[in-house]
């Protein structure tokens, strides 16, 4: 097994661990673990979009799939009653604004599905797909994530 495949296997393992972690822990720590898994894949995906790392369609699709699974696992982890505690940075507006948060989570998943389905073969076709994913991360964080303490 070469290094790249080992790394990918390791990150799949991490994402699965995050999902399993979710089953055994509170929604707050589970969603934080899921977001960490999403962030980990963003490093691979972003580095490639920036041209820091040579474009590799296999690594991109793998990262996108892990990220989609982690994001999908995060979606139900914001039930009512988890607005506070455990140093959550989730803003109360998530629950106050009703369905907007869920719509945005849906948009993130849709942008991931679209990128996976497109199977971008080169950097030029990948960049706009990455831009849509990154834009959904940002839009939601700006609205619904409180600053770090």
């Amino acid at each position, binding site marked *: 097994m070469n290094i790249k495949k080992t790394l990918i296997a390791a990150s799949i393992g991490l994402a699965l661990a995050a999902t399993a972690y979710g089953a055994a822990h509170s929604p707050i720590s589970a969603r934080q673990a899921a977001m960490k898994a999403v*962030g980990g894949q963003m490093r691979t*995906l*972003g580095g490639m979009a920036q041209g820091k790392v040579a474009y590799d369609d296999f690594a991109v699709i793998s990262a996108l799939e892990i990220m989609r699974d982690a994001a999908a696992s995060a979606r139900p982890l914001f039930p009512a009653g988890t607005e506070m505690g455990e140093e959550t940075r989730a803003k109360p507006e998530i629950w106050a604004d009703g369905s907007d948060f869920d719509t945005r989570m849906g948009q993130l998943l849709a942008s991931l599905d679209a990128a996976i389905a497109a199977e971008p073969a080169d950097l030029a076709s990948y960049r706009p797909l990455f831009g849509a994913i990154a834009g959904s991360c*940002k839009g939601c*964080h700006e609205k619904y*994530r409180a*600053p*770090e303490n």
Partner: protein
Amino acid sequence: MPYGKGAKDEARLLLGGGQAFATPFGTFYAPNITPSNEGIAGWSTLDLANALLRGVSPEGTHYYPAFPYSSYTRIAPQDVADLKAYLDTLPPVARVNTPHELSFPFNIRRSNGAWKLMFLNDDPVIESENPRGQYLVEGLGHCAECHTPRNALGGLDRSRWLAGAPNPEGKGRIPNLTPSGDLAEWSVDDISYYLESGFTPEFDTAGSTMVEVVENLSRATPEDRLAIARYLKALPAVPNP
């Protein structure tokens, strides 16, 4: 209704003021700078220059340094003229200014004159071989107004230039931008990419006030973002407290 904070798209051009700035001296409210009677209609370019570079109103009174003229004092005359020409094209907003809420003795406007004698000068803060980056960071960008700690009188502590500061809004700390601070591991390209996209090298997203700073700097030229990044990487290192 306050204009500005969190505004998107066309609403970003409605500079009617009202955004509150909490400080240890009281709460300041951003004024209306649109070409309306409640704003700055009728101002000449010289009036704007006096405000930005000297902190003086057309009536000759001192502005409070919450208006960052101690940074803007470095703005080049041509940029003042260009700013004036641009402000004149923006939509007028008929919003009456909110008076600042300051406690004694800070409510005595005249004492700003003494403050200026102590803290207002347009000297370069550090030695730099990067004049464009220096101009953008120390002047127009007024980065130090949040990223440099202040003394008891509200003057910037130049010995800890851009080395981070308590957040006047309460939560957290404003990051240390010097090479031994919070960006120690960031490259010039990382900083420049952050200022363009809002993503850190870890691909976390920018938070709080930097969201809007990035929104604006994403419209600057790539050369200007690189100049800012190079200036920051060349800062004198100041460790976190």
